[in-house]
């Protein structure tokens, strides 16, 4: 069975913005960067569980809306001096559609 799930069109995610995928075990934040890369991370900041999907995206980084920690979207890790990590998920874009793999990160 394929683990890849089709989520929706890339254009549904605003550039430098994000959308949420709801799952039974919590929200996943999908981000689209200015270079049209798509990243998926668990929508919980390692600091105090802030919803990262509501943060500001720049480069491959998102700034958490609650206390401005910066999270590297490629690794899910907080940028120094902060420490902590949120889970990341594999994504790919095929024919303009965003796919996510909830098993592989």
């Amino acid at each position, binding site marked *: 069975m394929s683990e890849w*799930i089709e*989520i*929706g069109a890339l254009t*549904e*995610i*605003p*550039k*430098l*913005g994000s*959308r*949420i*995928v*709801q*799952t*039974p*075990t*919590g*929200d*996943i934040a*999908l981000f689209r*960067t*200015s*270079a049209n890369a798509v990243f998926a991370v*668990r929508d919980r900041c390692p*600091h*105090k*569980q*802030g*919803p990262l999907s*509501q*943060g*500001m*995206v*720049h*480069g491959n*980084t998102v*700034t958490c*809306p*609650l*206390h*401005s920690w*910066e999270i590297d979207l490629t690794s899910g890790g907080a940028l*120094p*001096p902060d420490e902590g990590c949120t*889970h990341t*998920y594999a994504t790919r874009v095929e024919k303009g559609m965003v796919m996510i793999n*909830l*098993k592989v*990160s």
Partner: protein
Amino acid sequence: MKKDKLVLVGNGMAGIRTLEELLKLAAGKYDITVFGDEPYGNYNRILLSPVLSGEKTIKQIILNDLDWYEQNGITLHKGKRVISIDRARRRVAAEDGITEEYSRLLLATGSSPFIIPVPGHELEGVIGFRDIKDVDAMLAASKQYKKAVVIGGGLLGLEAANGLLQQDMDVTVVHLLDTLMERQLDKTAATMLQRNLEERGLKFLMEAETESIQGKGRVQSLRFKDGSEIEADLVVMAVGIRPNIELAKHCGLHCERGIVVNDTLQTYDPRIYAVGECVQHRGVTYGLVAPLFEQARVCANHLAEYGIGHYEGSVTSTKLKVTGIELFSAGNFNGDEGTEEIVMQDAAAGVYKKIVLKENRVEGAVLYGDTVDGAWYFQLLRDDTDISEMREQLMFGQGHLGNAGHGGENAAAALPDDAEVCGCNGVTKGDIVKAIIEKGLFTLEDVRTHTKASASCGSCTGLVEQILADTVGGDYSVAQTTQPLCKCTDYSHDDVRNTIRQEHLTTIQSVMETLDWRTPDGCSSCRPALNYYVISAWPDDAKDDPQSRFINERAHANIQKDGTYSVVPRMWGGVTSPSELRAIADAAEKYSARLIKVTGGQRIDLFGIRKEDLPAVWADFNKAGMVSGHAYGKSLRTVKTCVGSEWCRFGTQDSTGLGIKLEKMTWGSWTPHKFKIAVSGCPRNCAEATIKDFGVVCVDSGYELHIGGNGGVRVRATDLLCKVATEQEAMEFCGAFMQLYREEAHYLERTAPWLERVGLAYVKESVIEDAVRRESLYKRFLQSQKTARKDPWKQIAGDDKESRNFSPIKMVDTASN
């Protein structure tokens, strides 16, 4: 009545400070005589380093010239060394035979540089670094010779080495250990320091132990234990100091490393006091002025027979006085088993910070490259403050406490009044602000003279200047150093604003390209600022970029800690109606608001609304005729009003009505920071108009207009802008003032700090005196309001695609890892 006689031995920093304090407390109490073996008045020893490096002259470091002694009736025996004390007869005798009797004696003999007794140490050209004579010797040598060696890589040695380097000598620092300044710095900071000094041209010989000094008459070279040699025309020994205790010892006073004193600075002979580097208190000797000045205060208090002060020892902090190198250290900076550390290092920017914590208390700190927060950490350390609440923000400094941004980058503004600014003289920010206001001070020199802040080592000068600038605003003449907008650029806020205007830039991207931004998308600091700057400069042409707004402004609601939102509909002037209240109640039930609260801004807040419900909530409010309250925006917030003349027995004008008019005119406008207005119907001021960005206080004859108030982190009452006679004028002045603020303030700078920065006089000039300018500002304000006064709720609720963005893109039923 014959006065008591006080004799001071030692015309140095601690002794004279004691006399100054004493004169403040009890001016006529003693006949005072001072012996000093240096041939000058009293000078600031600390600043010998800048004299050596050529940044200051001897004249500039004189603290008390001979006139001062005369004016205060003090007899000064300068250039005279006291050689004996006869305690039985209470008499001191100097070298040349002069004697003076005393009823109280104060010893402040300081200390002497330790000269390592290696062979050759008495050669010409081998000196310490302690007094004017030594500096003269170094300056003379630098004119004649080339090669200098400084033995000792501590604070004093490095200042000497830097000074000699500035005098164009070829300088090598010889240090016994493998790290510099080991008593003040940890290894990382020491390495950064050494690298920086090497870049400036200093040479280092680490782990080198001097064996002998060679030369015929004058020094020629140095030999080390490992047999190697180095040429030298000048050798400065800066390996430590020894308290001058011989005099005290000879007359039988108990001495250990220093002259032993108790908590009132008395020696074993209660008539004899001692202060300064020559004393040992509770087992500790000090080599910095801050503790000595504390001793001086207590000692003076006791000499004046107030008898209330006690000296209980000091915690010290240090800074290195080498121009261009920022370095701060305090307390236990190395840490041990019981401590933990917060470390931040940015090698590229040359910044290193380490804070040592023990049981949620600051134990020590080392800062390199960025020392603005040194004073704050030092205060937390000395106050033994529990930092668990602010732990996460600790490293970013005081400016970041609470909600970042309102004070801009101004560390001085963030300091509380009781924060110590000048560590040397124990001067707090409150002392400085008070002196500036009460005495009408305008220059750094004035502040120095009146408060002594920055008058000793000078390393707090920048902070004092900032406080001065903050307090007197635009009247302060020294140019402000401009800070880059953020780490993505070297340009300041003003540079960026000017370019946007001159080049007609209407998008964030074009600003970044024109000004060579270092990052492709900027960061979360600059993007919102740039977005604001383009739309405020070109309201008709620039397009707002939602992705460059903080989430609250993007979602038009306030994000809460659990990720839900709060919704505040506008309630014009705080006035509502049964139908509006009904709509609010209905929405609260329909969308399961978890809390309904009356805000501090006279309207109602619904908490716990889910993001995906926001567009529907708004649609319902719109149906009931209500629009967004912008409780989330850097924009007009509320216009608070009181009941005014319609109902109140004291009301002089229709404050409620004017409030509503003002709100209808200004709502929806974007501003650098939030903007609050209030209108009170009489000077009883029930709407608290005098802590608002723009406040109106109605009086019988018209309307007083107030500006620049702030009720938040740092309360500031408004300044009176002017008085006008009609509502129409009040509205015009309000619009013009808001427009000036919009066009000129930095992003995230509220009116209060902005006003303090540019000065009330400037604002008055632009808005009152220059009627033409006022009219054009007002016109531009109304013009930009044409596009801004649209309800963002309506726009989103009525747009399917926009509304969709508030909901999940998809729901999947597979569990994720």
